[in-house]
């Protein structure tokens, strides 16, 4: 008889133990994702998302150290699931999505990638830094968004999917005219 812990250990080693190979796979996943977002291939980006994805961008607060981690507990710039993310993508494909027509030029720089085992055997936790350059229209301004991504990636039919994303922005007051883009 194999104990539950042992069983879990065996499954982990078969699935998502953090090996060099898995680390490399994660890097490729994040780079591919950034490419799809920057190339405006949002339908293909949706294919990278798990059916039960949770996607959140909590509101950062400027508070004294003793007041906690500095993020609102119940307020978000974005609080999304699969259905609402699809609505965002499908809307961008209509003729009247002026927020992104003409589209922004975005460049997702994803770095400082750290990987650790997830809470479930088929999941891994990934932390990374995000630096996003955004250029719109023909105006002289450009915009930057900086933050930390805390992702959970899950193995589904052999491929990695984004199961959870929390983007911790460095800005309390967001310095871009809208978040019509994905972080």
């Amino acid at each position, binding site marked *: 008889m194999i104990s539950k812990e042992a069983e879990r250990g065996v499954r982990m080693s078969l699935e998502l133990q953090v090996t060099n190979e898995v680390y490399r796979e994660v890097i490729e996943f994040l780079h591919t994702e950034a490419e799809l977002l920057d190339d405006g291939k949002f339908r293909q980006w949706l294919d990278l998302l798990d059916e039960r994805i949770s996607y959140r961008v909590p*509101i950062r607060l400027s508070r004294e150290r003793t007041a906690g981690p500095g993020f609102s507990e119940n*307020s978000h710039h974005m609080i999304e699931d699969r*259905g609402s993310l699809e609505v965002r993508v499908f809307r961008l494909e209509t003729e009247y999505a002026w*927020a992104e027509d003409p589209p922004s030029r975005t460049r997702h720089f994803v770095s400082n990638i750290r990987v650790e085992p997830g809470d479930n055997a088929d999941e891994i936790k990934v932390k990374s830094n995000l630096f996003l350059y955004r250029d719109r229209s023909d105006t002289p301004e450009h915009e930057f968004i900086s933050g930390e991504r805390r992702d959970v990636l899950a193995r589904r039919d052999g491929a990695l999917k984004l199961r959870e994303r929390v983007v911790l922005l460095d800005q309390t007051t967001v310095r871009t*005219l809208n978040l019509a883009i994905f972080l």
Partner: protein
Amino acid sequence: MKWYLDLMLGLDEEGWEVYGDPHRWFIHCNWKIPAENFAGDDYHTVYLHKSMYDVGVIPVSPDANMFGKHIHAEPGHTISFSIAPDTEDPGPKFWGLPADIVDRLRPTKITKEQFEIARRARISVGTIFPNLSFLLIPLTGDPKNRPPATYLTVRQWQPSGPDRIEVWSWILVPKIASQEFKQQAYMEGAATFSTSGLFEQDDAVPWPAISRTARAAFARKSQMKLNYQMGLEGISVAELDKDFPGPGVVYNSRYEEGVQRSFLKRWATEIAR
């Protein structure tokens, strides 16, 4: 203006409460542009926000939504109502509040007349001069899976430099609603009117462009003027409604620009003091 604010905020004895922390972001535009937009520029919704109807975020059709009132409550204080022609109309009642909340409303702070207008109300939007605006509306960020939920957004267009504003936007929910409804209403608010809001993302594009174009050399040299005549005598379908029980000057149909003129006249008056 108080009569109209009471009508919304006094719908129930308990009133409304702020949910969470405000959305804050910067937009490179003149503060008067969003204030004027919320003062009652409904004309733009059918074109700028057409995608919202295409994907089903809003439960009122564009034609039906233009039916309603433009109210010049006091100089600079205006409100625009999308309101059903009668109580038999199948569209949202009480701004789309669900039946279990409507059944529990205790309108002790407002009159029967106010309550009957609220019954037919689908959307209301307005500006309290100079830079505080509000919008009471039922929307959903995921029409296939979530019914629209009603929320009230109150926003301050805070000037923070020449042609730059910081938006402070709060989402309010009925106090008597369940915690579950409050959470969903907040989620729909964040999905539609916020930093990332599906509706609002489209507004944030023309606002800077209008501010830029209006001060451009071409505009100055050609003495370019914006046509703000809708609702003036003989122009557009808007007609005075003399039977409406509320105070102020009231127009039928939301194809009317007197609300914006009211805002700008008040500004011109204040600035000349």
